[in-house]
């Protein structure tokens, strides 16, 4: 079986600044993988390289065995990898339903069509509704996205990400800035929405990470210093020294 994602010796530098220094990471299909690390470690850059926002300086990224490094984001997305953003990145002037509907379009073969009425595409409406229901946004379907409360905007961010039915989902700090109860709801949503899919998540909340992840990678200064199960990471002296400190004890 091919792995969902294989990252080999991936490097990225901006001018003289080396942000990603030879990352190697293999994520099998169906795994929930968390990437943790201190601020500025390069976690978001790693996501940007994998999702196509930046082109790698060198190294390779393979999605289901196919090289995607340096591809345009929309081509990577069409191959089944979808991502969310750390800052809500939604279509602000459109309603929640329209936001999700845009996310659904390509997967249902709508292309750039201008000869079909979007309202009479039954499969589009049904999938949109299903995603909205899944993400607990169905009551707010006709609210303009810009008027949503913060936690709902984050949920919408996830809804747009999963709407296209991608098999590999990248979530960039989905619970950032949330209260405890909001975080619990978000985690429940993530678990439900990524069932049977490959999930890669960047997260600062250690409680979320240790609950959700099958395996964890620790990224420090653009390198992965350790990868393993939550148990292994918790007990890895190198990790504790480099980054986690007493946080791990608290989270456990």
């Amino acid at each position: 079986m091919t792995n969902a994602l294989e990252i080999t010796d991936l490097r990225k530098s901006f001018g003289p600044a080396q942000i990603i220094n030879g990352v190697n990471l293999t994520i099998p299909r169906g795994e929930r993988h968390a990437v943790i690390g201190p601020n500025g470690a390069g976690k978001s850059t790693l996501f940007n390289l994998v999702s196509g926002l930046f082109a790698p300086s060198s190294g390779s990224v393979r999605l289901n065995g196919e090289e995607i490094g340096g591809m345009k984001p929309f081509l990577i997305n069409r191959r089944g990898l979808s991502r969310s953003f750390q800052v809500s990145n939604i279509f602000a002037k459109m309603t929640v339903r329209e936001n999700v509907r845009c996310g659904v379009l390509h997967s249902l073969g709508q292309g750039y069509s201008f000869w079909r009425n979007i309202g009479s595409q039954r499969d589009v409406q049904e999938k949109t509704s299903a995603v909205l229901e899944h993400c607990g946004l169905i009551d707010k379907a006709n609210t303009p996205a810009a008027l949503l409360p913060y936690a709902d905007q984050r949920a919408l961010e996830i809804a747009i990400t999963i709407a296209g039915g991608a098999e590999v989902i990248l979530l960039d700090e989905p619970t950032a800035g949330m209260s405890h109860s909001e975080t619990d709801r978000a985690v429940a949503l993530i678990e439900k929405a990524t069932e049977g899919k490959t999930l890669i998540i960047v997260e600062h909340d250690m409680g979320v990470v240790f609950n959700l992840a099958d395996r964890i990678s620790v990224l420090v200064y653009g390198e992965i210093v350790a990868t393993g199960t939550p148990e292994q990471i918790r007990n890895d002296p190198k990790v504790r020294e480099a980054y986690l400190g007493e946080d791990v004890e608290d989270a456990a």
Partner: protein
Amino acid sequence: MTDMTQDYADLAPSASAKFYGRILPILLFALLVVVIPFLGPSRTMYSLLNVMAINIVFALSYNMLLGRCGLLSFGHAVYYGLGGYCAVHAMTFIEAGTSPFWANFPVFGLPLVGFAGGALAGAIIGWPSCRRAGTPFAMISLGVAELIAAAGFMFLSFFGGEMGVSGDRMNGPQLFGLSMGPVEDVYWFMAFWVVAGLLGMYAFTRTPLGKLSEATRDNPQRVQFIGYDPTRVRYLVFIAAGAFAGMAGGMSAVNYEIFTPEAVSLIPSGFVLIMAYVGGIGYFVGPVLGAVLLTFMQSMLSDYTEAWLLYLGVLFISIVMFAPGGLAGIVFGLAHTARHGETGTVLKRWGGQAAGIGLALAGLIVLVEVSTRWSNGYGEVFEPFGLHLTFTNPLTWVLIVVPFAAGVAILRRLSREEDPA
């Protein structure tokens, strides 16, 4: 799980909401267009309405870019003009009647030629210019407009130089029994195409591409991550906008029977921007209102005052600064407060605002009219309501300063009441 299943139709607006929100306004517009001739409008009125029809289609096509796709173009008249030139050339082919295709082509169908010409121009010019968005796109559109305007005086066989290209609309086969000669016949032609254009552009907003266009306007980055190329979206929308602009050009070719290089210049490009923005780019109907008002101002106000462009400028700046939603924003805002506010207070505030705007405008009008006459130096005097307002008359200055100051004071007071912070 079974009882969780949603009735998915629930999410979409109900059939009656769709009818009242979408179909009814278009039916009313079509009805109005059909009823107008039975009210016996004058020839001047007919000519005005015909120009309005052209401008409605042109302004709506502009808003496909600005309002719906977030693309600010300073050169939209290029596609209007090129479409129009194609149509007027086709008109001469119809007149010549040498090719069987054109000999059997009705003048009534010329907007289709304009549509094709505008789409082709959009497809060629849009290919490089849609690779950029935002400010670079606006700059490129300005450059293209200058380029085509300059070409207008160079390529004489197509643009006809300063004389332009002229034709005669009373040739070829007749459609619907319209000889296309009298202005009343032209009205029915305009009526058909303005409704067709409006329907076409409204339908476009309801398609997947139309929705992706809005998504690209809101957040081009995210569009990339839902599997679409924003550059491709912009390019396709650009072609469609060019096509409808060309259609307006084709309507114009039939109306005036002549096209000159001025039609591709920056002046109509600026005018269409103002029409769309004054009308309200956030609403589909906005450019329609803008086109109606500005066409009216252009033809009527210019009879009363030579300073009408100055008033147009003041209107445009006021809309940009104080009512960015445009006329449509004002209308829908008033309708909203009328429905949700307390009638008494709402009426009081509207009255106050109307009085404030009226007073400030009165002061401004006196200033503009007195100074244009003074500056012309013909000794002409502004004499409203029998008053003799010369430049040196102290009363003149009282009538400028007092209403203007009073109007501004009222408006400031009202806005402070509304927002006590």
